[in-house]
């Protein structure tokens, strides 16, 4: 790369090096394109640096603290137990570092040009990349926008990165706070509960709607709340956050619950009320191209992830819901292949959703309520993890696997609640994409003893033929 205000050229420019962006860059390079990848912060994006990976690292660590109680029960006695939260954070940062470097190595291996800077479009064939000390234009044949999203800010609860924080800062706390107030009872809010309750904090959740985790069936939410009191206690539903007040060292969230004022105090207020892709897209000067931001704040695309501008593709959070890294990975590959002239298409019908509560939740396809609306007759098989040898032998007996099929036994959806739900959903998703029937899962030999055996038992349960449950 030549320094200075001059123009260079590339077959493909990818803007944003998050999961979607770096994947697109690597795949395009594999297809023989000359690729420039532009990132203003760190490779890996939110997911790797400020989202999935650090969150799950902390959940992993928090899990130990919880598990230690169980050690005593099974005869493992520990003395002088000490948890150093800062060391945990350092370990977490090492994980991120390792993954970031890994990606940089792969990019380098494939000859992707990695540029640090902020990009905006000059026209449908040129971006301007502004770096710290200079700027240059990059001409391209195709561009992929993968600029992601940022947390939504609620009026009255503007982020100050100290008391009022987003999902990003919560992962960088230097110590475990006594009390955290979470505004928003979605994934992020509930995962904060998972982590910090186990580390010993009190986490209070304020949700505007009548129940938390509105995207999941009530059965699932009830089950989590029954299993784990931290998802049940200190949950304030139908409560609208209004403003923050400060008292001593604490922040007080003032909320309105059915006309009554709630005052909930915490060391931090985590605002996790959704994410927004529009502010980032607006900085790209898309008016110089034919791509158009729609009223929902996304850049809509066709099946090949192409926007209204034939040279410009869009993937990941910026392309639309659901905002999930694994959707972005797949879209990145599709866009890269399409840009290379291949007949790729985002034809996926099933995108699994995973939530790292304890027990974990993972769902794909239709749930029972949705299936009943669409089909006169359905088959439902439910297998409790209490009947799984593997679940009991790892002291993870909570949860269940539920499988829904149509009257011809074609699988419509799977919901899993349990210790390894996030891993088990892969098999269910494959089954759905492959148009599998109950027998396909039931008659496949599942290794014993494992968690996924529960899936084949649930498939049998839907046929009223479960061996291990009734």
């Amino acid at each position: 790369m030549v320094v200075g205000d001059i123009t260079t050229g590339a077959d493909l420019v990818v803007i944003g090096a998050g999961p979607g962006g770096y994947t697109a860059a690597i795949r395009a390079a594999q297809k023989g394109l000359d690729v420039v990848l532009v990132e203003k912060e760190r490779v890996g994006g939110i997911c790797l640096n400020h989202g999935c990976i650090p969150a799950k690292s902390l959940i992993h660590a928090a899990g130990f603290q919880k598990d230690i109680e169980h050690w005593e029960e099974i005869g493992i006695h520990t003395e002088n137990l000490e948890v150093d939260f800062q060391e945990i954070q350092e370990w977490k940062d090492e994980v991120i570092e390792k993954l970031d470097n890994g990606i940089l190595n792969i990019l380098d291996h494939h000859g992707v040009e990695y540029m640090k800077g902020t990009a905006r479009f000059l026209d449908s064939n040129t971006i301007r990349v502004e770096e710290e000390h200079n700027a240059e234009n990059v001409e391209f044949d195709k561009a992929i926008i993968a600029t992601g999203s940022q947390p939504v800010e609620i009026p009255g609860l503007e982020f100050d990165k100290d008391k009022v924080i987003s999902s990003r800062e919560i992962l960088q706390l230097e110590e475990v706070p006594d009390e955290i107030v979470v505004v928003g009872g979605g994934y992020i809010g509930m995962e904060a509960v998972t982590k910090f309750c186990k580390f010993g904090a009190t986490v209070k959740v304020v949700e505007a709607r009548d129940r938390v985790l509105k995207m999941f069936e009530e059965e699932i939410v009830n089950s989590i709340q029954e299993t784990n009191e931290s998802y049940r206690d200190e949950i304030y539903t139908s409560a609208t956050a209004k403003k923050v007040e400060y008292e001593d060292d604490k922040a007080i969230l003032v909320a309105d619950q059915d006309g009554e004022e709630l005052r909930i105090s915490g060391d931090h207020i985590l605002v996790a009320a959704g994410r927004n892709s529009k502010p980032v897209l607006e900085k790209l000067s898309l008016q110089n191209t034919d791509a158009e931001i729609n009223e929902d704040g996304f850049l809509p695309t066709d099946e090949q992830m192409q926007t209204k501008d034939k040279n410009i593709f869009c993937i990941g959070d910026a392309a639309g819901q659901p905002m999930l890294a694994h959707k972005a990975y797949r879209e990145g590959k599709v866009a890269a292949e399409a840009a290379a002239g291949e007949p790729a298409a985002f034809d996926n019908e099933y995108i699994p959703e995973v939530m790292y509560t304890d027990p974990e939740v993972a769902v794909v396809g239709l749930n029972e309520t949705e299936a009943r609306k669409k089909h006169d007759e359905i088959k439902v098989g439910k297998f409790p993890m209490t009947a799984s040898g593997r679940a009991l032998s790892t002291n993870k007996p909570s949860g269940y696997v539920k499988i829904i099929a149509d009257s011809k036994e074609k699988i419509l959806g799977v919901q899993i609640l349990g210790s390894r739900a996030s891993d088990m959903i892969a098999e269910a998703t494959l089954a759905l994409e492959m148009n599998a029937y109950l027998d396909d899962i039931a008659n496949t030999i599942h290794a014993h003893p494992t968690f996924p055996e529960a899936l084949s038992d649930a498939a049998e349960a839907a046929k009223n033929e479960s061996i291990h449950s009734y």
Partner: protein
Amino acid sequence: MKFEFPDTGEGVTEGKFLEWKIEEGDEVEEDQILAEAETDKAVVEIPAPADGVIKELKASPGDKVDVGEVILEIETEENTETDKDEESKESEEEKTESSEKETPDEDFSTSDSEDVLALPKVRKLAEEKNIDLSDIKTGERITEEELIEYTNKENLESSEDTSSTSSEVPDESTGSNASPSVRRLAREKGLDISEIEGSGRSGEVLRNDVLNAAGEQNTEKDNEPSKAHTVESEEGEVERVEMNNVKQMTGSKMKKAKFTAPHVTHIDTADVTRLVKLRESVKNDIDEHLTYLPFIMKACYVAMQDHPNLNAELDEEKNEIVRKKYYDFNIAVDTNRGLLVPKIKDIDEKNLVEIAGGISDLVDRAQKRNISADEMQGGTFSITNIGAIGGEGFTPIINYPQVAILGVGKIQETPEVIEGEVKVRNTVKLSLSYDHRVIDGAEAARFMNKVIENLENPEEMLMEI
């Protein structure tokens, strides 16, 4: 309810009343034919918009009536109590519905009362799916894809309603019934997976289905002429010739057709002397290369109006004959890759010159290997014209799952006895092979008679189309 003279499409604005089939005071059922009228395109039958009693006839045979003019009043159960406003609204709705219903049966296919453009098969599909085509907003003719897309959207929207919907619909209409790798394969072959007939469970499209569908396309192997190599055997020298994809496909299709459908071949001769003269007289006036094929296609299409079983398919599972209200004819084309069967769409809608243009284009592209599988699949009837090469009668094999194929021999001068005298006439032998499960010998003979009549009296036939 006031019933207006319906818009029969094709820009028809007025018609002449021929006859009432009912009298005042008669009880009629919905769709019962009430009257016949003549427009400048054809004679149309006018069905009743609803069950009811005929109150007053407002037109008499011989009257000229404009589209939208009230031609009769019916007393229906609903309108005995409703006020005038509702009456007119209702009749408006009924009108739309009735004209849509008759559209596929009649040969009016490009527009209806809402000025919606769509092919008959699209209209039929819309009717099946209970969709009002005028709800679909496009600038031009509504395609099947657009309708399907709209239907899917409708299903999605309706699935969000609390009311339960029918159980089969969402399954069939949402998403592709194929695994990810097969979907990808279809895209690589340039095929729309939703148009490939699946042989798997519940019609799942399998890898082989895609490969079969792509078989007729110009893959590399297709393009190679058949490879041959010489082998010495004990008895003597033989040559072993590898079959290319086209030949293999033809082989397997022929085998399936011949062993599934019990074939009968009906052979007859048409005296086409007048047709030969007619073609001679016009062929220099038009740019397209006008062969006899467009005339023969039209002759078949017209004959199918009386014999719809010839443009059909057999649903073996349900034991139902599926009569098709669209007319897409395949023609056999000899290429250096083997036999290809490009499809000329909408024989009912196109005029002779358009059909001739379509044939030249498809034959040309078939020979240059520049034709897609889509352009060959899914016809409703086939014609094979070996006469261009030579020969009189032969026994063609049906292009399964179609139920009939017409073989056309060579047009030649033969001595014919006309009113006791031997005259030199132009004649052609026609060989109709048909699936005896669907079509009986008598019906085939009647169809053939009608085809011959059309070809022997081409001017009259042209008046009919």
